[in-house]
Each structure stands twice: as C-alpha cells, then as structure tokens.
C-alpha cells in the first residue's frame, strides 16, 4: 500500500465529501490489512470487532450449511465495504468472510469507531448515512437474487 492511511481514506469513494477532520477521526481507528488468497478474514458467530474497506482483491461472504458445505452468498471487490455487524448488538458476524484472491484492505476498529460516534454525533451521522446506503443496496441486491429473475418465466 502506498501513501498514508489518511490519504487512502481521503481518496476513497465511500468517504467522499467527509471533512478532513472526519477522515482524521477515521484514520485514528484505521490500520492496513492484507489477506492471502484463501485466508479467512472472519467467521460467522465471531465478535464483529472491525469493518474493512477493501482496496484490492476479492472476498467471498459464505454461509455453511450441514451436508452442503460452504455456500457463497455474495462476493465483494475492491472499493467495497466488508462488514456492518459491528454497528448493532449482538455484534457478531453473520457470515464467514474469506479472501478469494490476495486482498489489501483498511481495517477500521469497531470499538474505536463506536467511541468516535458516541463522542461526535455529526461524525456518526455522516458515517451511518454511508453505511445505510451500502446496507440498502445490499438488501435490494439480495431481494433481486431471491426473485430468481433468470428462472423459467
């Protein structure tokens, strides 16, 4: 990864229009992270102690069902946000996340983020607005997938 974490966050589309001050708050919670292809990033049921801004690479969100093995429900790619279970109780991951290819990310520490949100509600509003958009888009996508639009008419 080149440049500072601040610069990376500043340039990222997800945080576009955030003030430099807010980017500074985020930066204080952020560390670079890297995952090799095949590496598990987190497991279902584990404590949701972070979220990740994927910079490069591909990540599969999976759920494992007895007798059927792992089932990929969605893949995420460079520019995507991975993880929002840190936002709300019980703060446990709902899926497994596994790197499909070598993946570079920024890890945002959840405890740090929640403390920043509690301390600065305007920052929290800005952040939650962005996460809400991601959640809405994923919900719509999941509904489309459920509709099975390519199935027999």
């Amino acid at each position: 990864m080149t440049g500072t974490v601040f610069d990376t966050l500043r340039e990222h589309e997800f945080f576009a229009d955030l003030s430099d001050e807010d980017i500074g708050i985020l930066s204080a919670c952020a560390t670079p992270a890297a995952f090799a292809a095949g590496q598990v990033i987190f497991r279902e049921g584990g404590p949701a102690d972070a979220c990740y801004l994927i910079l490069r690479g591909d990540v599969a969100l999976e759920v494992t069902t007895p007798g059927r093995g792992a089932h990929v429900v969605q893949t995420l790619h460079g520019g995507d946000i991975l993880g929002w279970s840190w936002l709300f109780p019980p703060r446990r991951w709902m899926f497994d996340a596994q790197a499909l290819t070598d993946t570079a990310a920024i890890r945002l520490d959840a405890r740090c983020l929640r403390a920043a949100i509690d301390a600065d509600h305007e920052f929290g509003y800005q952040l939650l607005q962005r996460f809400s958009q991601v959640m809405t888009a994923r919900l719509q996508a999941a509904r489309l997938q459920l509709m099975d639009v390519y199935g027999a008419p």
Partner: protein
Amino acid sequence: MALPDPLIAPLVPAWWPVRSVRRELADTVTLEIEPPPGGLVFEPGQFTMLSAFGIGEIPISISGDPGAPHALVQTIRSVGPVSSALTALRPGDRIGVRGPFGNGWPLEDARGADVLVVAGGIGLAPLRPVLYTILTDRDAYGRVSLLYGARSPSGLLYLDEIRGWMAGLDIDVLLTVDRGEPGWHGSVGVVTDLIRRASFEPAGTTAFVCGPEIMMRFTKQALESAGVDEERIAVSMERNMACGVGLCGHCQFGPFFVCKDGPVFRCSDMVELCWLKEV
C-alpha cells in the same frame, strides 16, 4: 412454386433448413439456419418469427454475426410448446422463418465513446450481434465492457466465446451469478453490482441492456446513478409479438408496437412505461 420470401410476404413463413444445432445449456440451443443464396441481412437487435410446423410461432432475437448473413443464427430457450419443438430440431429439419423484424440497437450513437453491454441470462443472445459489430470495427469505439449476469455458472451462455473475449484486450468482461456452484471462483451477486466495477466515462457512454424486464429496470436505475444519460440507455423489450409488422396489435406497449417500433427502445422514450405494472 417458389418458396415465399419473408421480405416480400412478411406474413408468410419461408421454410429453411437447419444447418446445425449447438447445445448451449440444458434448456437452450443455438440453431444455425440456412437462408437462401444471398443470405439474410439484419441489424443487431432485430428478431425473426420462428415457427414449428403445426405447433406455432414465436419471436426470437437473432444472435449471429451481422457480417455473416449466409447463416441465420438463433438461440432458443425451451420454455413452452413452440420453443420446445424448435429446440428439438435436428440438422436437415426445416424451420419456418419470417423477418427480420423491428429496429436495431443504436450502434451509431455509441461510436467514439465508451460502451456498456449489460446482459442477464438469455438476454446475451440479442446483444451478441452488438459485440460482433463492435469487434469488427473496434477502433471506432472507446472502452467496451460486457457485464453479464446469470442465475448460476451453468446458466452462462456462450461461455467458450466469452472466455475468448476475456483472453483478448478488446472487451472487458465481468461476469456474475446469483448463486454460486462448487468450482465457481467468480463473482456472486446481481449484475447491477458490476456497473461500479466497469471502466467507463459516464458522459457519452452508451449502454445496451437486455434481460428479464425487472433486471433491466434495476440496471437502468444503477446506470443513471452512475451518471449515464437515460437517452443513451437502450433496452430490448418483449411483448407477445405476433404479426411482426405492427398490424395485429398483440405487442402494443403504450403508444408503441414493440414489433415495429422496437424491440429496442431508448429509456428516455419510455420513462413512464418503465414503471407501469400493466399496459
């Protein structure tokens, strides 16, 4: 007695031999039909009415190369009695053909700028002639991306050809499926997710979209959110086309006859119609 020419007698099918049959998917085949000498000239996006003798007739988009008019190539998915009969044809059998009908994709608008070809399921078939046309004159266009979504990896059409495009530099190909399968290491998610990953300059980009109607509606929204002008988003509609020449009214869609005024429409021409549940 001479066989009827579909261009002269558009309501009378001509009976042409099937030259070859290629199984694409479990329920989908591509027929290569042999037109008379001189071939069948068509524009990308046009369709024919294909009939199975004694069973019926259905509209099918032409999926072949417009630069090769001596073969009429049609990809058909078996979903009903007529399409089941057509997909059961063998080389040497005869098939009824009327057409080509309708308008084509606005390829002239796309020249000189980036192009997004967004397909869902069998919606890639009417778009394949677009890709052939672009590849024939590749320098006339900017960046070209094929964004293709299907139900599952085993539902991806023309996979051998897609692999060839992926191996080349002319088209950026992004694939996704709604449901992964063992051995699939590609994207899982809806086709609209691919728009953000494609490289294009929204201003001036032309998008050609074909797939299930609901997929096209969501794709239109996502393209507009990405900054693509709705005048430059073209979709291919399907509405019970029967006569093919705007006489019978079966395919009326608001003020349009899909068979004659379409099947390709600019989204800007049908803003209200896009959101109607029934016309």
